[in-house]
């Protein structure tokens, strides 16, 4: 297939919009921490994008999209972008590569949730390279690069398992290894800058249109379907989470935006397979499920600080299963449970479970390893004065 000007223009724009989601995650998380860690949260997102950019063009892309080895990982045929050029199938190979780079970058940024306000920047950088190489890249290969999940027929349109289950369950493992913040459960650690979180949420909602629609890899009807269901699911999640928190108190804007993100996460794997009415249900139930997961996490006294597990892990898991329920051949060529194909539901369940277990286990091992070699955590005094000052020598507190 020759290069299409329309598709190429569309995916270039989508790549730029998805890039904006990474600082979006930083702002989204930054507003939820105490002010002494605000710069640190935003900076870690930029750091994620920078290190993954280099990792991806050197080894990451080939490990994800190189020729398949045993269904597990890609070969080294595209090492250092060897053979990734300006020609391609509809869009240039190089454009596909950089579009995927933006996904890998934002995924590492989501992982920072589990270590907010207590990780050493240097350790995060080392962990980030290892994590992207050994967790993200295999998962991307499984789903999109011809790995076992791909061969099995598992559906993941835009990264429900690759991006969200991986970072959500990874963040949970990371939080368990690094431990709770000092004073967690004793002192108030409420969000100190909600408007910044709302701004980050706005960037995510906006960028997600490109994230899901761009995953069609063409400027076509499927991309439009993805964009439409993405917005519906976000809106539905925002409403249900807000209503649920209303019952327990005030309808917080933090709940509203968290619900929107939960809806966005849940529709991600199915955005090219399900229709608009299914999206209302998928997003709405994601809002309630993720909110319950958050309450469960708090009850357990676990400091997975900014709820990547509750929102991305649980939301991504639900999204993968929901794709197996609501997929319809009229949209993406595959039927789910509701359209008489229970096999797809089972495949989705297996794929999501294996991804969750692998992401959790591998992240746990990597975190332990980095902790042993260089220590994951800052000293108690550094944590007390905040990572802005202790890691960056900067401060937002005048």
């Amino acid at each position, binding site marked *: 297939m020759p290069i299409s000007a329309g598709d190429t223009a569309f995916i270039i724009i989508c790549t730029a919009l998805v890039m904006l989601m990474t600082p979006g995650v930083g702002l989204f998380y930054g507003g939820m921490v105490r002010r002494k860690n605000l710069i640190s949260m935003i900076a870690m997102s930029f750091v994620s994008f920078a290190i993954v950019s280099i990792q991806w063009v050197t080894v990451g892309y080939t490990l994800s999209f190189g020729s398949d080895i045993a269904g597990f990982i890609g070969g080294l045929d595209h090492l250092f972008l060897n053979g990734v050029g300006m020609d391609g199938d509809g869009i240039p190979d190089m454009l596909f590569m950089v579009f995927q780079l933006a996904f890998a970058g934002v995924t590492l940024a989501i992982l920072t949730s589990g270590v907010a306000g207590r990780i050493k920047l240097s350790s995060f950088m080392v962990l980030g390279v290892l994590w992207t190489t050994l967790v993200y890249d295999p998962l991307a290969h499984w789903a999109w690069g011809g790995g076992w999940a791909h061969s099995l027929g598992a559906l993941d349109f835009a990264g429900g398992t690759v991006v969200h289950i991986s970072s959500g369950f990874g963040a949970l493992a990371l939080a368990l290894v690094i431990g709770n913040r000092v004073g967690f459960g004793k002192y*108030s650690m409420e969000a100190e800058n909600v408007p910044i979180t709302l701004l980050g949420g706005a960037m995510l909602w906006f960028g997600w249109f490109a994230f899901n629609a761009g995953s069609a890899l063409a400027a076509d009807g499927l991309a439009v379907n993805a964009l439409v269901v993405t917005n519906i699911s976000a809106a539905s999640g925002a409403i249900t989470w807000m209503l649920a928190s209303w019952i327990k108190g005030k309808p917080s804007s933090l709940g509203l935006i968290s619900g929107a993100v939960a809806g966005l996460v849940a529709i991600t794997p199915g955005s090219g397979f399900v229709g608009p009415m299914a999206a209302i249900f998928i997003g709405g139930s994601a809002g309630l499920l993720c909110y319950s997961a958050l309450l469960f996490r708090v009850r357990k006294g676990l400091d997975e600080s900014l709820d990547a597990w509750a929102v991305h892990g649980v939301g991504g898991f639900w999204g993968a299963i929901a794709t197996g329920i609501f997929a319809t051949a009229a949209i993406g060529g595959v039927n789910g449970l509701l359209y008489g194909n229970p096999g797809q539901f089972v495949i989705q369940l297996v794929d999501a479970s294996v991804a969750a277990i692998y992401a959790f286990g591998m992240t746990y091992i990597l975190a332990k390893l980095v902790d042993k070699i260089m220590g994951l955590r800052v000293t108690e005094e*550094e944590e007390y*004065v905040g990572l802005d*000052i*202790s*890691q960056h020598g900067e401060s937002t*507190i005048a």
Partner: protein
Amino acid sequence: MVNPQLHEVTKMKQVTAIIRPEKLEEVKTALEDRGYFPMTISEVKGRGAQKGICIQYRGSQIKVDTIPKVEIYMVVNDEDVRPITDTIRKSARTGKFGDGKIFVSPIEEVIGIRTDE
């Protein structure tokens, strides 16, 4: 001019406590439990005898010489001073450097803005 007789009339003291910001909720609750509600709170920065915190970062020393604190300002009857300072001490204490200080000083005059007292 200060009216010297007022010292005998007011019988009130000003209690100013500088505490750790993360202890504010605990201190507020402890004071509330004993019936002491009125207070003014400010976010302040400062340093004590330890001259702030020194942290080691990549081999070099970084000095954080002023640390965020919360100042609680209360004007109370003489007989309440001791119970209040005891309550603050108990609830704001961690035992480490930087727990803060409490200052007590006399009040000359109290004028309500809404009421005419």
